[in-house]
């Protein structure tokens, strides 16, 4: 979706302001949000792409107003409701529905570090051969899906060059909709800054993005 989250190239947000001696969390609830999301995610009722899409579909003014962990929290609520792990009534009352048996958490403390260390690799074996090769000229497609996509608006329609391929990876656009992993080759594509931003850009500069085959056409 062409959401406000797709902010590459925007002006108006002011300078970047690093914080000295920044703590990992600025308040304990931030850490709990991170932990709740991971622990509830262990039920495998959604995937990382679907999770990202729930953040992108927050109302745009909210998206810009909320902090990172506030956005995670709001989207976690959407996810657990959408997955049926909790009901709206449970959320409103704060009390569990006694008709539903108490479950057993899939993620216990002893499994936390192994689960973090394993992560969720997205590399897949496929039989197809790559459509593009290093050095080849490509153009990012002009697509404007209303669902999740990882093709930022600022490269659409722009010419780039294939740097390398990373093998086949899960395709977010279909995975976010639970329509399958549809794994396909993922390429690093180099875009000259001038191709993206015009002649005012430094001719030496470039932006590199990892783009799936379905985002690219040969030119």
């Amino acid at each position, binding site marked *: 979706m062409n959401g406000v989250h797709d902010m590459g190239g925007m002006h108006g947000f002011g300078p970047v302001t690093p914080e000295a001696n920044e703590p990992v*969390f600025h308040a304990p609830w931030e850490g709990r949000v991170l932990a709740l999301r991971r622990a509830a995610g262990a039920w495998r009722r959604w995937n990382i792409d679907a999770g990202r899409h729930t953040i992108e579909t927050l109302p745009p003014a909210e998206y810009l107003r909320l902090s990172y962990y506030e956005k995670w929290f709001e989207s976690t609520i959407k996810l657990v409701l959408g997955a049926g792990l909790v009901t709206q009534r449970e959320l409103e009352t704060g*009390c569990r529905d006694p008709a539903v048996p108490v479950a057993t958490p899939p993620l216990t403390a002893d499994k936390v570090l192994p689960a973090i260390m394993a992560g969720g690799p997205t590399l897949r074996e496929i039989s197809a051969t790559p459509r593009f090769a290093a050095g080849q000229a490509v153009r990012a497609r002009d697509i404007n899906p209303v669902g999740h996509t990882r093709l*930022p608006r600022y490269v659409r329609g722009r010419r780039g060059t294939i740097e390398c391929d990373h093998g086949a990876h899960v395709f977010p656009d279909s995975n976010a909709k639970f329509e399958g992993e549809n794994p396909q080759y993922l390429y690093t594509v180099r875009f000259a800054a001038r191709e993206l931003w015009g002649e005012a850009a430094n001719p030496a*500069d470039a932006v590199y993005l990892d783009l799936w085959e379905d985002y690219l056409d040969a030119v």
Partner: protein
Amino acid sequence: MAHDHAHEHDPHDHDHGQAMPETALRVKALESLLVEKGLVDPAALDAIVDAYENRIGPRNGARIVARAWTDPDYKARLMKDATAAIAEFGYSGAQGEHMVVVENTPAVHNLVVCTLCSCYPWPVLGLPPVWYKSSAYRSRAVIDPRGVLRDFGLSLPDDVAVRVWDSTAEIRYLVLPERPAGTEGLGTEALADLVTRDAMVGTAKVAGP
């Protein structure tokens, strides 16, 4: 130094998450409900918080960098297959499943961003700082990387090429900074002490001792 910047924030920018008590209460309520329903284990929650507060942070990446500076064979492995070379240190997994290392040189400066959310190489750098997640950084890094670097106190000459890595897929990037002069005699732990998080994102250089 980047971290000497005054900490000024737009009053409308809540990115630091100063806990509005209401949010803290709502998070607590959700946790209680999920625990009561047997959906999450409170000890697992503690373990996740502990992992990212105490075990997984930029010291990991700094060790990788120091090793690459001092061990040409390791550096060759790191540049060829970063995921495997990083796993030699026991660092792997969530948000670092597929790693690539990009090297700064006198002619090339690399900068990492995720314009669509805030993707970041957790196993080697820990959780991202607020500025990395801010709209200001995400929006400007691709269109005005040199201006962003100036916000961090780093002015690059026009003939140094800036490569911005917009890491919107599942490949995660770590910048291998230039080794500063005057560090010839230092061991890897002393070198790692010099390597800042910002240098491994590309918003700073590594200063000498």
